[in-house]
C-alpha cells in the first residue's frame, strides 16, 4: 500500500546507518591520530607519558575476596591471588607539593607491562572531561604556565571545574590515605552471562582512614592555580619519600571495590557519563579484592611501569563507543594508546631513563631536568717540577 512510506523508511534507515558509520569513522581517526601524535611528539621525543610522569611504583599481592554480593566472574574467582604492581603518581607536574590530582594504577602481575588486568584511577569521584571530544578540548585548553592551567577550560565548562574541585588534593599526607576512582564504567559479564556495567575504586583497607588533602572551601577562580603555596614545607618528592618510608616500616593495604548495574535495553547514555556517579543507594560498593603492598620500586622501575586499558579480559573490558561524543569514547581513546607506551619504552632503551626529580627550588615545573654532571676537569696548569 505504501510505497512512499516504505521508501522513506528504508531511506531513514540508510541515512542512520551512514551517520553511524561516519560517527565511528571520526572516532577511529581521532583516536588513531591522537595516539600517534602522543607517541611521536611526547613519548618518543620527550620520554613523556600523557600526564602522570611523576610517580612511584611498588609491588605486592592482590587477593580476590569471597563476596556473595558480587555475581561470579571467572576472572574474579574467590580467594584467587595475583602478584601485583601499583603505581602512585601526581598528575602533570614534576612536583608532589602542587595542588593536583593523584593517581593509583594497579596491574594484576608484577611485570612492567604485561598483565591480565589493569586499573587506572584518579582521586575524585568525578572527572574533568567526559568524552573524547571533551578530552580534546581539555587538552587544547590546558595552556599551562608556572603551575596555572585550564583557566579557559574551567570558564567554559562548569562541570569540568566542579570535577576539578572534587579531584584536586592539596598537600595530602600520603598516597595511601586517598580514595581513587575509575569513573568510567566497564563491561562485567559474569558466569550468568548477564550484561552488567562495573565501576571500580580503591580505598584504604583500614576502615575509617581519613582522606587528607581535600580542598576546604575552594574558590572556583583559584582552581586553575595549582602552584605550590609560599611557605609550603613539602619538597618536590615528599609524597614518594613518604610512601617509600611507609613501606620500609610495613605493608600498605587497600581494598578494591566494585559497583555494578545490570544493563537495560533502553539505556540512558548518561549512566556511562563519568561526571555522574551512580547512586550508591541503588548500586552499592562491594569489596572485590584486597591489596597488600610490601616493597617500593626505584625510579627506573617506576618509570618503566606502564598500564594499559586493554589489559583486561574481554568480559571485563571497555564498553564499545559509537562517536567522539559517546561517554565511552574515553576508554576507546585509551585503548588506542598502546603505541604511545611502546614509543616511550623505546626511547628509554635508546636514550636512557628520565632523570630523577631533584629536590630543588624549581617548583611548579613539569619538564625533565638534566642533573648536573660532575666534570672532574681542571684548567689549572700542572705544577712545575
Amino acid at each position, binding site marked *: 500500500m505504501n510505497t512512499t512510506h516504505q521508501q522513506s523508511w528504508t531511506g531513514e534507515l540508510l541515512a542512520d546507518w551512514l551517520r553511524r558509520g561516519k560517527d565511528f569513522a571520526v572516532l577511529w581517526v581521532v583516536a588513531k591520530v591522537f595516539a600517534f601524535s602522543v607517541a611521536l611528539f611526547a613519548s618518543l621525543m620527550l620520554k613523556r607519558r600523557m600526564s602522570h610522569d611523576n610517580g612511584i611504583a611498588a609491588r605486592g599481592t592482590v587477593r580476590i575476596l569471597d563476596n556473595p554480593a558480587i555475581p561470579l566472574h571467572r576472572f574474579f574467582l574467590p580467594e584467587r591471588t595475583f602478584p601485583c604492581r601499583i603505581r602512585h603518581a601526581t598528575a602533570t607536574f614534576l612536583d608532589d607539593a602542587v595542588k593536583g590530582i593523584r593517581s593509583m594504577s594497579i596491574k594484576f602481575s608484577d611485570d612492567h607491562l604485561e598483565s591480565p588486568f589493569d586499573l587506572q584511577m584518579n582521586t575524585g569521584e568525578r572527572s574533568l572531561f567526559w*568524552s573524547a571530544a571533551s578530552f580534546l*578540548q581539555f587538552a587544547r585548553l590546558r595552556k599551562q604556565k608556572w603551575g596555572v592551567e585550564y583557566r579557559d577550560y574551567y*570558564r567554559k*565548562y562548569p*562541570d569540568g571545574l566542579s570535577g576539578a574541585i572534587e579531584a584536586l588534593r592539596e598537600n595530602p599526607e600520603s598516597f595511601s590515605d586517598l580514595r581513587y576512582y575509575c569513573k568510567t564504567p566497564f563491561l562485567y559479564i559474569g558466569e550468568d552471562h548477564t550484561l552488567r556495567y562495573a565501576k571500580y575504586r580503591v580505598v584504604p583497607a583500614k576502615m575509617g582512614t581519613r582522606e587528607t588533602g581535600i580542598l576546604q572551601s575552594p574558590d572556583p577562580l583559584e582552581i586553575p592555580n595549582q602552584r605550590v603555596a609560599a611557605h609550603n614545607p613539602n619538597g618536590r618528592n615528599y609524597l614518594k619519600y613518604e610512601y617509600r618510608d611507609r613501606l620500609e616500616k610495613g605493608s600498605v593495604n587497600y581494598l578494591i571495590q566494585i559497583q555494578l548495574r545490570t544493563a537495560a535495553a533502553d539505556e540512558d547514555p*548518561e549512566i556511562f557519563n563519568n561526571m555522574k556517579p551512580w547512586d550508591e543507594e541503588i548500586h552499592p560498593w562491594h569489596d572485590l579484592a584486597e591489596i597488600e603492598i610490601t616493597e617500593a620500586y626505584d625510579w627506573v622501575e617506576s618509570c618503566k611501569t606502564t598500564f594499559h586499558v586493554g589489559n583486561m579480559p574481554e568480559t571485563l573490558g571497555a564498553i564499545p563507543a559509537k562517536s567522539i561524543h559517546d561517554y565511552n569514547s574515553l576508554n576507546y581513546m585509551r585503548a588506542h594508546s598502546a603505541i604511545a607506551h611502546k614509543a616511550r619504552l623505546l626511547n628509554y632503551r635508546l636514550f636512557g631513563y628520565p632523570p630523577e626529580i631533584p629536590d630543588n627550588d624549581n617548583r611548579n615545573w613539569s619538564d625533565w631536568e638534566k642533573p648536573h654532571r660532575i666534570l672532574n676537569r681542571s684548567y689549572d696548569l700542572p705544577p712545575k717540577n
Partner: protein
Amino acid sequence: MSGKHLTHDNDQPAPYGDPDTVHSIYRECIEETKPVPTRERTFLAPRLKGIHHLDIGYSKVVTASPGMILDNLYNFYDGVKDTLHEWWLRLCPRPTAITGTDFRGSSIVGRTTYAGRHDHDKPIHHLRVELWGRTWWLGWRRLAEGYSGFDGRFELPYDLRAARSSAIRKIRAEISQTTYRFDRHGNRSRSFSLAVALPIKKSDLVGMRYDLRDIQIELWCYRPDCYIPRVKIDDLQHEAPEKYVEGRNEAITDQFIPVELIKLKHVTMLRADPNALTIEEIQADYPPNLTTCIEARLPGYSRSDEFFGERMMNGMNALTFEPIDGEEHRYRVVNWGYQGYDHNNVYAFPTTEMDFEILPGDHAPRPLQITITGALSAFEHDPDQKRTFYPTDGERWLQAKRVARSVGGLISEVDDHFARTHVNVEQYAIAANRNLRLNPVTWLLLPHLKEVSLIDHTADRMLISQEAGYIPRASALTEKGLKHRVRDALGMMNWKGYRPMPVINDHHYYARAENLFWDITYEYISEFFEHNAADIRAYWYEIFAMSEDLVSHSVPAFDREAHLRGLEGRAYEVASRRLNYWTTRFDHQPQMPTGSYGGEPRALSPITQAKDFAQADPDDWENLKEMCCYAIHHATFLHSWVNEHQHDDIGEVLYSCLGLRFGEHPDGVMHPESDHRIAPDPLRATQMLWWSNLLSRTEYGAITKNPDGDVNPRFGELLKAHEAEFRSYGVLVDNIESRTNI
C-alpha cells in the same frame, strides 16, 4: 485636544459683541490653527533626519540642492538595502521549531547581568535566550530557547548531535528583549529585539554544560551622575536602549520642515544683524496660533479678563484653584517664581498670586486681583516687594496679566511639562523597562512609556543646558535653578494617592476631562487585571523588582521638616511658602507612607515588598493598579494636554513668553506690549515660536489610532465610547497620544 467655547456671566456687559459670535470665533480659531498640513515629499525638498538632529540654532537639515540630491541617492540606497535585507530575511527564515531529538546531557548555561561600575553584578531577569546554528547554505536552525531566571541564570538543553551537525557552519547565542504588539482585534503577538549575539565555536560544544558566563548588557542603566532618575544614554544613535519608531521621525520630517525653514531663515538673518527683523515680522512668518487668530478677528479679546480666566482654567496652565477661606466663590492661585532658585537678572520671574471669582455653573473664572512678589525691573533687587493690581487699574492691569501669563508659561513648561510629565514618566519608564518582560503588565504599561527617555535626552540639550538650551537663555531660571526646581517637583510627586484635579464648576473642562480620562483608564486597567490575574501573580517578582528600582532611584521625599529645618525669618517664610506652592500644585500628601533607600525617605511609595505574590500584602494588588493608572495617565492625557496647548498659550511672542526682559525703563516689565525691549529679543522670539510649533504640532501616536499596534485596542475602544463627552470638554480623543514622545 482643544479649548471649548466660553460662557460668561450674564450680568457682565459683552464688549466683544454677541457671546455666541465670540464662541464661534473662538472655536473656529482653535480649529484653524490646529493642524499643520502634511507636506508632500518631493524629490528636491529639504529633509530632517530625526528629532535629535534638531537644534534651537541650526538644526541639521539638508537644504542645499546637491545635498538633497545626495540625500535622495542615499535614501535610494537605503531603500534598496532595506528591500534586499527583507528579501534576504524571507529567503532564510528562522524556524520556530527546535532542531534535535535528544536533549539529554548537553546544555548552554550563563547569567545575564547589567554592565558598568554600579550595576555589573546585578542580574537581569527574564531575558530571552536562544541558541542558533547557521548552516553552510545560510539557513537557520533553532537549537535551544528559554528565559533567564530571577537570578539571571539560564540553562538551555540542546541536542549535541544537531549542534555539531556538519551542516552547521557557526553557532551563536542571542539575548533579546521582548516586545508585544496587537492586531486590530486585540490579539497579542510577541517579538524579540536582539540585544547581544555571542558567537560560540562549534568545536567548543562537547556536551554537558557550556558556560557563557556573565553576559553583561548595558540595558536601561540609570545615569550615575544625575540629580534625578534618568536613563544613561552616551550615544543616542548607537547606544540608546530604545529607538524612535520610524513613524515618529517621519511625522517630524513631514510636519515640521516648513517651520524649521522659517527659523533657519530668521536665525541666519539675525546672526548677521540682530535687528534685521522685528517681533511682528517674525510672528507674521509663522503660522497663526489661537491668540493671533482671535486678535485678528476680535481685536483686544485675547487680552481680556474673560479670555485670561478661561485660559488659566482650561488652557495650558490648567491651574489649581484653592478656595479662599470665608469668601464664597473666590479662589486663589499661586504661581511660584524665582525665589529660592538660582536665576539671572535679565528676565522677570516673580511669584504671582491671582484671585478669581468662579461661580457655580458654566462660568469661566473672573480675575479679581493679581499680586506680584519680586523684582519687576532692572533697578529693583528686593525679592519680597509686593504689588497688587486690580481690573480697575487700566493699562497696569493689562500689563500685570501679561506678567502673570508669562510666569504661568514658564511654570507650565518647567513644572508641568518637563518635571511632571517628561522626567516623572521617565522614572517609571526606566523601572518598567528594566524589570517587566513576562508579566502581563509589560504589554499594559510599556507602550505608554516608550520614547520618553529619548525625547528627555534631547530636551537636556535643547531646553535645559546652560550653553545650548532655550530655557536658561530665554528665562530667569539658570540650568542650576531649573534642576533644583525639577528635583523639588519630583520630590512632591507620588503615584500613591494621586487623584485627578477636583472639578470646581461646570466650566472646569480640564478637570472634568482629566477625571473622565482617569476613570476610563482605571476601568481599562481593572478589566486588564481581571483577565490577566493569574499571570500577573505568577510573575510577581517582576513587579517587586520594578518597585525596588522605582523607590531606590526616586529623589528624596520633599520632607517638610527636613526642608525647613534650621531656617529662620525670611528664609523660613520663603521656603515654607514655596513648599505650600508645591504641595498644592501637585496635591502632595505628606502623610502618605513612602519607601526609603539608603536610610533616606524617598518620594515614591513601594508597590509591594514581596517577591512572591503569596507573601504580598492584600493592598499590593490595588497598589499596582494605581501605579499603572498613574503612569499611563501622566504619559498620555497629562502630557498631551500641556504639550498640545503650548502653541495656543505661548505661540504669540507679545501675548506670553517664558520671560519678559526687565528692559531699560524704570517700570521694567510693567510696560506696554509695544515696548519690545521687554519682550524676548528677536532671536529668542523666533526660537520660541519654533519650538512651540515643534512640540505642539508634530504629535504622533494617538491611543485611538494606534499606528504602531502596540497599545491594546481595548483602551482606544473605551475612549471612543466616551468621544462625545470628551468633545463637550473640548478634547478630541483622537489627539490623546499614547506616550510622551515630543
